[in-house]
C-alpha cells in the first residue's frame, strides 16, 4: 500500500472519499495534525454572535427601550477593561515563566547530578499538574502581603494568580529549552569541545543561538494557551474579563437574553487576540522548517 491514498482503492464508490483523504493528508503534512484556528472559525463565531443578538432582539419585549446590543455597548468599557487585565496577567506570567523556565531547562542539562535531578523533578511536577489546582494552591499558600520590618509589600489576588499561572508556563518553557538543546546535533558539541570552548561558552555562544528558532514557535503556542487560560483567574476572584462579564450580567438582573451576546463577545475578544498569534506561529514553523 504505497503511494498516495488515491491509488489505494479501485472501488469507484470509495474514490471521492479517497481523494478527500489525500487532500486532507496533504494539508496536514503542511500544517501538522493539530486543528489550526482558521479565519472560517472566527467568522463562525461572529455569525453565532450576530445570530444570538438577533435572537435576543426578537425575544425582547417590543416596547422596551434597550436592545441587548445597546446593553453590550454600555458594558463594553467594563468588559474590555477586564480583557486588558487578562492580557496583562498573560504578559507578566509569560515573562516570569520564561525567565525561570529557561534557567530550569538549562538546569536539566547540567553536569551536576543534583541540579539536573531537581530541575527535572520541578519541571515534571509542574508540567503534569492541572493549572487550576496550581492556581488555587498559590492563592491559598501565598499570603496577601509580606512584611519586612516596617515596609509592607502587598500581594493582591491578581499577582498571586499570575504567579500561579507562571508555574505551569515555567515547566513548559523548561521542556522547550531542554528539547531544543537536545535537538542540536552532537557534532556541534564535539567541534566546540575540540576548539577548547568551555561548557558555558559552548552553551551560550554555540548551542543556544541555534535553539532560538526552534524554540520560538512552541513558545508562542504556549503563550496563546496561557492567554486563554487567564480566565481561570475568575474562579479565584480576580477582576478579569470573565468576572466582569458575570458582574455585568448580574447587574442587568440576570436577563437570559444577554447571556449569549455577552459571552460571545468574550470569545470574540480572545479570538481576535489569539488568532494572529496562531497564524504567526504556523508561518514561523513553516519558515524555520525549510532551512536551519
Amino acid at each position, binding site marked *: 500500500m504505497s503511494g498516495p491514498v488515491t491509488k489505494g482503492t479501485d472501488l469507484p464508490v470509495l474514490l471521492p472519499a479517497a481523494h478527500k483523504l489525500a487532500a486532507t493528508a496533504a494539508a496536514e503534512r503542511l500544517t501538522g495534525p493539530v486543528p489550526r484556528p482558521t479565519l472560517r472559525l472566527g467568522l463562525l463565531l461572529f455569525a453565532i454572535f450576530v445570530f444570538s443578538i438577533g435572537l435576543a432582539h426578537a425575544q425582547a419585549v417590543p416596547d422596551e427601550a434597550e436592545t441587548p446590543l445597546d446593553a453590550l455597548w454600555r458594558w463594553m468599557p467594563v468588559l474590555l477593561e477586564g480583557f486588558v487585565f487578562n492580557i496583562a496577567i498573560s504578559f507578566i506570567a509569560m515573562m516570569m515563566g520564561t525567565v525561570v523556565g529557561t534557567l530550569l531547562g538549562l538546569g536539566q542539562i547540567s553536569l551536576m547530578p543534583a541540579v539536573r535531578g531537581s530541575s527535572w523533578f520541578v519541571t515534571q511536577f509542574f508540567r503534569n499538574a492541572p493549572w487550576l489546582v496550581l492556581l488555587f494552591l498559590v492563592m491559598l499558600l501565598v499570603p496577601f502581603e509580606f512584611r519586612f520590618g516596617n515596609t509592607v509589600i502587598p500581594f493582591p489576588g491578581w499577582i498571586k494568580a499570575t504567579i500561579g499561572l507562571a508555574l505551569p508556563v515555567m515547566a513548559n518553557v523548561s521542556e522547550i529549552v531542554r528539547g531544543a538543546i537536545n535537538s542540536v546535533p552532537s557534532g556541534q558539541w*564535539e567541534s566546540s*569541545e575540540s576548539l577548547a*570552548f568551555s561548557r558555558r561558552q559552548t552553551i551560550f555562544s554555540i548551542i543556544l543561538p541555534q535553539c532560538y528558532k526552534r524554540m520560538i514557535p512552541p513558545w508562542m503556542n504556549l503563550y496563546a494557551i496561557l492567554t486563554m487560560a487567564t480566565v481561570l483567574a475568575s474562579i479565584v476572584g480576580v477582576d478579569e474579563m470573565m468576572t466582569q462579564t458575570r458582574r455585568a450580567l448580574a447587574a442587568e438582573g440576570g436577563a437570559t437574553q444577554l447571556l449569549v451576546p455577552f459571552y460571545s463577545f468574550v470569545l470574540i475578544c480572545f479570538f481576535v487576540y489569539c488568532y494572529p498569534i496562531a497564524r504567526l506561529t504556523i508561518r514561523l514553523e513553516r519558515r524555520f522548517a525549510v532551512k536551519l
Partner: protein
Amino acid sequence: MAPDTAVTSWTPDQPIVKITDLHKSFGEFEVLSGIDMSVMKGDVVCIIGPSGSGKSTLLRCVNALVDIQKGSILVEGQEINTPGLDKLALRRKVGMVFQQYNLFPHKTALQNVMMAPVMVLKQDKAEVEDRARKLLAKVRLVGKEDAYPGELSGGQQQRVAIARSLAMGPDLMLFDEVTAALDPETVKEVLVTIRELAEDNMTCMLVTHEMGFAREVGDHVYFTDQGRIIEHGPPSDFFTSAKDPRTREFLSQIL
C-alpha cells in the same frame, strides 16, 4: 601506569604523541584493546582499517573527547589519562576536523574561524580577523568570508573547518575521515589543503580511506582491525609488501 606527567620534560626530538597500551571500551564492548603508537613532530600518520575497527575512537582519545579506561597517551609529554587533566589546555594544542564538518551554522565562514581565538584564547579581534582572512585565503576560500555554512558546498565547508582548527595555532591536527562525506570531485580540493599543511610541517594524524593520499603524503601508515594495530610501516613498504593476511585482504578490497 602514567610514566611522566611533567610538561617541561618534552623536547621536539621526542614523539609529540606517544600512545602506550591504550584500552577503551563503551560499556561491555572494547573498542580499542592495546594500541601502541608514536608520532614524531612533522609526521603525517595515516590510520586505515575496516569500519568499526576503532580508528575514530583512537583520534578522539588523543584530544580527550572520550575518556580512556587503561593505558597512557602523552601529548607533548603531557599525560592525558589523569583525572586532573586540563582538557581545554590540551585542546588548544590539538586541532580536530570531523567527517560532518560541524561548522557553526549561525555564523559566517569568517566568524567560524574567528570565534575560538577570540573567545578561548582572548586574542585581539582585529588581529584575529586579519589572520582568519589569511587562513581562508590559504584554503582557497577568498570571497566566501561572509557566506554561511549552508551556502557552501561540502568541500568548501570542510576547508572552512580546517581553517577554523588552524586558527587556534595547534601543534597537532587530527582528521577524522574528513573526505568521507564528500563527493569525488570535492575530495581532491580538501586533500590538496591537507597536503599543503603537511608540506608546512604540520603534524597530522588522519583516519582515511584515501589510499592514494596515504601513499603519497603519509610518512607512516597504520592498519587497525578490531581495536588492535595489525601492521604498520612507511607507505612504500606497507602498500607493496604487507605481511599480515588481514592487511592484504583489506588492501585488495580497497585498491
